[in-house]
Every structure is written in C-alpha cells, then in structure tokens.
C-alpha cells in the first residue's frame, strides 16, 4: 500500500479555546487577598472570680465613643495615626532600665535568668509529681502542665536570645480597646491597625538585630513552610519575639 500522509490537525481554533478558558478565569477569580487581624477570644468562664487588681501604669486604654472620637489614657486624641507612637512609648520607656523601679506611668520591665527558669521548672515538676501521687483533680494537674510549658518556652527563648538574662515586660501590661456600640467599625479597625503597626515595628527591629531578617518574612515562612524542622525553627524565633513584646489586647465588650 502506498504511504498515506496523515493530515495535520487544524489548530486554528486553539486560540478560541484558550480565550474561552482565559475569560472563564478572569470572571471567576479575584486579585485581592483576604487580609485580617487575627485575635483570640478569651475562654468563657463559668465561675466568676473577683477582678484582679491591675496597676494603672500597666494599662493602656484606647477608647472611642459613639461620635468616633478617640481617647488614649484619658487624653483626647485628634490624630488616630499617632496611636502607634503612643504604643511604642508604652513598650519602650522602661525597657532600658529592666529590673529597676522607675517612677513613671509606664509598665516596668523585669529580668529573668537561666538559673531562675531552671529553678522554676524543677519546682513545678516536683509539684506535679506530688499532685499525681496525691490524686489531685485532673484540671489542677493540667494547669500545672500549662505553667510548665510556659517556663519551657521561656527557656527556649532565652537560649535563642543569647546571654543569661531575658528582659520581660510586666506580666500585667495590656492594651485595652474600649469602644461603644455605635462606634464605626473603621475606628475599631484603625485602633487594631495602630496596635499591630507598633507591635510589628518592635518585633521587626528585634528580628533584624538578632537574625537580620524582617518579622514579616519570619511569619510568612512559618505559615507557608512545609518542612517540619524548619517550621519549628521559625516558630521558636516567633515565640521569642512574642515573649519580648507580647501583644496583650483586651477588647472590652461595650455596655452602651
């Protein structure tokens, strides 16, 4: 039989097919990413305890009323962009004088040493042993385990930080967002933005100093990395930054 030539497939409509697909993707997808501030809600408590006394110097209250006017620490604030500067001041004023008693209106810093951390871990381990031997309720033992985890976190952080001392802001230092029911969401979001900006700046500076990378890079790596050991490494770094500059934000439920 004679060799028959195979006719070429007509690819003229390929462009049409591709256009069709392209238009489909253009219509069903969007460029903008979903971006948000992630916050945790405190656990619901059944037993109401007496409120803990918190020193005035440890509280940074940011308030907004129903007319969307701002007040930071009792003073009227006209420029919402300045809140982050105030948050920075709140963190940094006494940072240099860690371990000393300073007479001003900002939270104090303390230092913890390697030996103190080790002593605490040993103490808690002994307590857990004693409680387990005595058959204490499980929730009390769990509470001790949580404490132990906190101290171990600090131990890891200090190792990463270098030296033998870890400066720590007062454990009660917190930022409060107090809005009213009618306050616009944009104001609420603005306060969150300003706090986030200040915290980012502080942690970023520390990350640059310690490892020469930006805080944003660390966070992205932690979120997108698949390698387990690498994730752990990045997590440790983030933990240290969180211990140095904890973001304790209290969102106060509005009453009116």
């Amino acid at each position, binding site marked *: 039989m004679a060799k028959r030539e195979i006719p070429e497939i007509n*690819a*003229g409509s*390929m*462009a049409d*097919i*591709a*256009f069709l*697909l*392209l238009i489909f*993707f*253009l219509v*069903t*997808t*969007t*460029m*903008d*990413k*979903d*971006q*948000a*501030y*992630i*916050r*945790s*809600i*405190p*656990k*619901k408590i059944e037993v109401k305890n007496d409120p803990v006394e918190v020193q005035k110097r440890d509280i940074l209250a940011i308030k907004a009323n129903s007319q969307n006017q701002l007040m930071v620490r009792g003073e009227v604030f006209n420029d919402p962009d300045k809140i982050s500067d105030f948050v920075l001041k709140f963190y940094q004023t006494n940072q240099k004088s860690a371990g000393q008693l300073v007479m001003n209106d900002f939270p104090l810093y303390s230092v913890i040493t390697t030996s103190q951390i080790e002593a605490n871990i040993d103490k808690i381990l002994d307590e857990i042993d004693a409680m387990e031997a005595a058959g204490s309720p499980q929730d009390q033992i769990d509470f001790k385990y949580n404490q132990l985890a906190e101290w171990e976190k600090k131990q890891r952080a200090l190792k990463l930080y270098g030296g033998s001392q870890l400066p720590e802001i007062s454990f009660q230092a917190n930022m409060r967002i107090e*809005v*009213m*029911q*009618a*306050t*616009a*969401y*944009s*104001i*609420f*979001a*603005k306060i*969150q*933005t300003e706090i*986030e*900006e200040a915290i*980012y700046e502080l942690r970023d500076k520390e990350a640059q100093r310690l490892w020469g990378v930006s805080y*944003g890079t660390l*966070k*992205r790596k932690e*979120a*997108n990395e698949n390698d387990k050991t690498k994730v752990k490494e990045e997590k440790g770094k983030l933990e240290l930054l969180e211990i140095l500059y904890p973001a304790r934000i209290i*969102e106060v*439920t*509005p009453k009116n």
Partner: protein
Amino acid sequence: MSKFKKEGRKSTPGVNTSSLPDIVFMLLFFFMVATTSKENDPTVQVEQPTGTRAMDLTPFKQRSEVDFLYLGKPRNPARAEAFKMGYALSLDNVVQPTPDGLYNTNAVGQWKKDKFDQKPARMTSPIELVITCVKADKGAPSGLIFDIRKELQNINALTIAYAVRDNSNI
C-alpha cells in the same frame, strides 16, 4: 527606461496567527497563578476599611481553616429599612431574618458549628483555632462585632479575624 519592473498589484500577506494560542495561554496561566477564586458575592455590600500589617489569610483558606461572615448594607434597598441602622449580617449568602427589626446574631453559633462539621477530613484543627473572619463595612457599628464575638465565645470558637483592605504590600 526603468530598471525596475513594475509588478502587478501585490496583496498584503495575512498576519501569521499561529502564535496567538501561545500568547493567550501565557495570559491564562498568569491569571491562574496570580488570582484566587472568588467567594460568592455576598448579598450585603461591604466597603472595607483600610489597614496595614494585616495577616494574609490565603494559607488558612487553602487549609479551609477560615470561615467568612459579612456585615454590611443589604444590596436590596427594600430590605435595608428592616434593619437597625441599615446593616445586616450575611452568613453564606443568607441575610439573617430579623423578627424584631433588629439584627439576629443568634444564628452565628449554629452556623459556625455546622460549618465546622462540614469541614473536610484533612482539616484537623480544633474549633478553637478555626478562624472566623468578620468582613465588616466601614460604618458598621462595633456593638454588632461584639455580639458576634459573644456568640463565638459561647460555642468555644475562640479565634476571630477582623478583615481590612491592606494596600501596603500588594
């Protein structure tokens, strides 16, 4: 006496379109990579406030660890009057019924629970860590956000996210 012979009328050659599919495919792949699929258009109109340093939720979205709820003005103006201050809550495109003319945030708890039960098996995070992202309009009253927050607290879904439009790092 010309050296050049005058040729007959020349027809312009057609443009070669054989690389057109390649160009279009290139565009197609660009859009496939650079964009994410759109959520259903919510039945409420949300104009988000701007912010900076916000967390990108894409990795959480890929792991289906985030649920979105919308808080804005109803697109149907006839319905807007039924809501206090003109804002309504949209859960999966269902604008919540408002028997007493107020918002009904009571549905949030049940909605979140149902969502959590429907998650794919590969999602292993406990409900405490599954993010609930509130996409609220600029002018939405904050009191409503706190109502939602309370509902979430009741069912122990303890991670909330406040959405903003972040123009700083695109």
